[in-house]
């Protein structure tokens, strides 16, 4: 395999390319998670997003998630590509592909991967609205930080 299984990229992600990274003849299932840019969050209209990453550590943490999955589901193969930079509504921000001989492993390992990304991978998103911007505070999208300062939830 020429391309790394765990990547941070600036350009649009090819879902097919990520899928092909886990495709193999032993697989009976491939699950895909495609994370896209949502227009409305809690009633607020997002115009665009900017993702920022601490790239070397983000790649390292994606690899760690790969290791965790290998330990939990030894017959799963996983590939993850996350895009950073400026993204528009409906753009693909992340693609996770998992293949396994049987479907349950592929479903479970895939959900595990996205949950872990939201916990340990140093990537942040900034939302741009008509009347301002905000770095989103955590993976649950509950805590927001205007200019870095914690505030109460609206």
């Amino acid at each position: 395999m020429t391309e790394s299984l765990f990547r941070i990229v600036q350009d649009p992600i090819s879902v097919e390319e990520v899928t092909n990274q886990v495709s193999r003849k032993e697989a009976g299932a491939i699950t895909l998670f495609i994370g896209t840019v949502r227009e409305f969050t809690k009633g607020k209209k997002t115009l665009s997003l900017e993702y920022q990453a601490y790239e070397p550590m983000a790649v390292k943490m994606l690899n760690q998630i790969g290791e965790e999955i290998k330990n939990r589901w030894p017959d799963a193969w996983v590939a993850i590509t996350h895009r950073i930079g400026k993204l528009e509504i409906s753009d693909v921000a992340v693609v996770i592909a998992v293949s396994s001989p049987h479907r349950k492993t592929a479903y479970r390992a895939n959900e595990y991967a996205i949950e872990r990304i939201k916990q340990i991978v140093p990537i942040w998103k900034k939302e741009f609205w008509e009347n301002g911007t905000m770095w989103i505070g955590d993976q649950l999208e509950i805590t927001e930080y205007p200019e870095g300062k914690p505030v109460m939830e609206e």
Partner: protein
Amino acid sequence: MITVLFFAGIREEMGLDELKIVEKNDMTVHQLKQYLQNKYNLSSFSQVMTAINESFVTDEEVIKDQDIIAFIPPVSGG
């Protein structure tokens, strides 16, 4: 010398991507946070995790010469 990296909201608050600090060896992460908070009047480090050389560490970790320290606000990828 140590290198300190800032991201997301803290980066905007600092107005800096990174900071080189000379002669600040042998202090803990907690001490570095206090030093930066006082010097740059930063809001809060309370929910901010820290990585040294790309691995998460606790506030008690001692910083060594040449370390790269990154402050990681709660992440929001995916």
